[in-house]
């Protein structure tokens, strides 16, 4: 995953890697970009930038290794370095602040027990997507990487440049926040929750 140049690919090899190992992930990449920016044009730019960077640094990619994780890492860094700076969004989430806040919650593990499996199963795609989209970007990201894209904790640690323990705890908190959102959807929609019991 490092950007150290390891290889010296020929032009033909570069094109092969690009077409066979990078391009097949364009669908996942675009969806990741869209879920980070909520904007088609921004997502397109982000994906395009990512692929151009990937091509430029292709010698630091080891053929046959995890191209998807490598590309996701570049996209995530482009988002943080370029897009977030450019964007007019005033909300700059402070990882530390967010994590400390949720860390300090003593009832962390038991707080969402009144959400029922049945109401989750009955929810519509839009409700699930909206709940996910309403999470702060750092929490949203771990859920996207883990549940939607199927990355392992180890891959996520590399993509996000954080220790595995932080992946685990951030994921746990992200899911608790998601459950809170889903629970309020369930209540608004009149789904059965334990609160009436």
């Amino acid at each position, binding site marked *: 995953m490092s950007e150290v140049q390891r290889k010296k690919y020929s032009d033909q090899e570069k094109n092969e890697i690009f077409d066979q190992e990078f*391009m097949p992930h*364009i669908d996942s990449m675009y969806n990741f970009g869209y879920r980070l920016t909520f904007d088609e044009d921004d997502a397109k730019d982000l994906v*395009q930038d990512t692929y151009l960077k990937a091509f430029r640094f292709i010698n630091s990619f080891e053929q046959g290794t995890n191209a998807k994780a490598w590309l996701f890492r570049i996209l995530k860094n482009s988002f943080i370095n370029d897009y977030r700076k450019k964007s007019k969004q005033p909300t700059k989430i402070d990882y530390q602040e967010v994590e400390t806040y949720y860390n300090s919650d003593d009832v962390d*593990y038991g707080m969402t027990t009144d959400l029922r499996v049945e109401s989750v*199963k009955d929810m*519509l795609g839009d409700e699930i997507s909206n709940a996910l989209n309403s999470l702060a970007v750092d929490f949203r990201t771990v859920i996207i990487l883990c549940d*939607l894209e199927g990355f392992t904790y180890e891959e996520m640690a590399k993509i996000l440049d954080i220790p595995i323990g932080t992946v685990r705890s951030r994921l746990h908190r992200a899911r608790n926040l998601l459950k809170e959102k889903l629970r309020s959807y369930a209540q608004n929609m009149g789904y059965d929750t334990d609160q009436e019991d």
Partner: protein
Amino acid sequence: MDKNLESSGERKLRCSDESKCFQLLESILDGENSQDSKEILKEKLDKCQPCFEHYHLEQAIRDVLKTKCTKQLVPSELADSIRQKIKEIE
């Protein structure tokens, strides 16, 4: 250990270490912790109601995220535009 737990297979209503158990269950659901996970899982889900409920709720949430989240169609021109830009660099 309560007796009816062993005799009837009923689940205990309180988990003695929720925090640790839930974390373990979550990592099993995420495909981590594959060693012995089947045995641990069976043990927890058979014997502990909070673990049982937490596991199934977490599983349902993962399922709906995987299957129901809206997917965006990649704009058809994006791949071509990327290839075009790459050609320009080369």
